[in-house]
């Protein structure tokens, strides 16, 4: 067990180092959400009626949008390892297979934490006025962390099956798309009924509603538990799926 932890630590160090040096991806994962936020707040926001300052409404959505981009680049780095020969070297060494995926997942969570912090900081500068107590902040951060962890394992799983880095980025496309179909940018009651069915039942909506409630004092209701259940369920399912897909990929 201590070996598994030591191997994972080494692989986490590697993935974080690689992530830091992949400057394009790093900048994209920070700049793109900032641009999206500016776009929604200054361009579309004025026309969207949410019953509150639009920036207070949209910040949780932007944070979730970030996780989508983060997941896409995680999937791509996993596929890069799978297709570059690195996986053969690692597998011919006496280390645990899942340490490779763990490295990418933890680096992904770290990258997301960084970009989320920057996005929240920028939002405050743009007029975001959260009313959360330290406890509510901690709860929001904890939920987001759980959700990002789940999404990162899902991305690692997609990365493990993708045949090329390009198809890994295509596979993770839907992760970028899901936030638009949620209550991230507009209240779901404004959508046509067939879309509302999707947007109210996809996992992102309860997560966003809960984070929004915790940060800005909007009532959460039972959405907090739904968000928690979704995140925990997604995490377990993604972890099992990713390790199974990894094993299937390397078994020939």
């Amino acid at each position, binding site marked *: 067990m201590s070996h598994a932890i030591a191997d994972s630590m080494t692989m986490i160090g590697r993935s974080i180092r690689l992530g830091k*040096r992949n400057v394009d991806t790093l900048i994209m994962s920070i700049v793109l959400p900032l641009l999206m936020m500016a776009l929604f707040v200054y361009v579309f926001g004025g026309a969207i009626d949410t019953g509150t300052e639009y920036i207070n409404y949209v910040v949780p959505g932007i944070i979730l949008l970030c996780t989508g981009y983060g997941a896409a680049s995680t999937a791509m780095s996993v596929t890069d390892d799978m297709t570059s*020969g690195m996986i053969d070297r690692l597998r*011919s060494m006496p280390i645990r297979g899942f340490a490779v995926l763990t490295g990418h997942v933890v680096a992904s969570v770290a990258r997301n934490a960084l970009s989320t912090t920057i996005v929240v900081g920028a939002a405050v500068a743009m007029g975001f006025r959260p009313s959360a107590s330290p406890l509510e902040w901690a709860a929001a951060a904890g939920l987001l962390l759980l959700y990002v962890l789940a999404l990162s394992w899902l991305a690692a799983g997609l990365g493990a099956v993708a045949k090329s880095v390009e198809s890994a980025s295509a596979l993770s496309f839907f992760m970028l798309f899901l936030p638009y179909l949620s209550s991230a940018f507009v209240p779901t009651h404004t959508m046509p009924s067939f879309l509302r069915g999707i947007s109210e039942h996809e996992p992102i909506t309860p997560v966003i509603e809960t984070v929004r409630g915790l940060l800005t004092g909007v009532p959460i209701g039972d959405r907090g538990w739904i968000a928690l259940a979704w995140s925990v369920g997604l995490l377990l399912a993604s972890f099992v799926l990713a390790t199974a897909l990894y094993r299937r990929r390397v078994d020939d």
Partner: protein
Amino acid sequence: MIVEATGLRKAYGSTAVLDGIDLEVAEGSVFALLGPNGAGKTTTIRILSTLSRPDAGRLRVAGFDVVREPAAVRGVISLTGQYAAVDAEQTGRENLVMVGRLMRLGRPGAKARAAALLERFDLVDAADRRVKTYSGGMRRRLDLAMSLVAAPKVIFLDEPTTGLDPASRTTMWDAIRDLVRTGTTIFLTTQYLEEADRLADRIMVLAGGKVAAHGTADDLKARVGGDRLDLRFTSAAALDVAAHLLGGFTDHERLVLSVASDGSAAHLHTVLDDLRAAAVVPAQVSSHRPTLDDVFLALTAREGVPA
């Protein structure tokens, strides 16, 4: 025997890639698996290094069963694949330290080992540069260095010099010879007969998933016989006529017929007279000692022709 395989079989779908391979490698020797693309060389290496599972066969590496004790096998081998498995965004030193830590040398141990290997592979100046700035030869050297971090008993090298320029190839050969001096067993694959000839104690020729021949370089050359006379023609038709007349092995791509010879002027005379009588005159004639190319040609040529 440090590497043993008996009845090794592997198929992908209905295609048999390895069709009953037996091999033995003595400790401290260099064993070369020689063959064209698709002969099953890489599959053999992947199976012996625990990356791929065989369909059948008894396989042992350093006394461990490859299928039932993969973790033990991984502890005593290393693999250098066909494509340099190095992280381009890490420096040479970081790559080596990472492997050292994964091989449980501890942080100080991994650093010391990395420094020693950088020195040994002439990478000290480039040690703290990212690998993406390295030349192809430097990458291969780093790749090999990464395989040596834990001082493995058996090193599997899959086409270690494919794609390298002649100078880098020579450096690679020297590095491999150094390894042999330290008692490491080397199991390599190559498409280059010259490489097998220069490095290997024993050579196995693989063709279509079967063993076409095995032995020392001299054994294999002896199978082709004494000197060879190469006759180059200008048309495939002339080549066929000459082959019908004289026997030997034909290389249709280069339009060359290679026949056994005793190296005497009299034999050369007879051959040329026979050809003139049949109205096929070779454009060029050369004589040489048999090379592994001849062996290869002989073995693969025999494949297609019913005995």
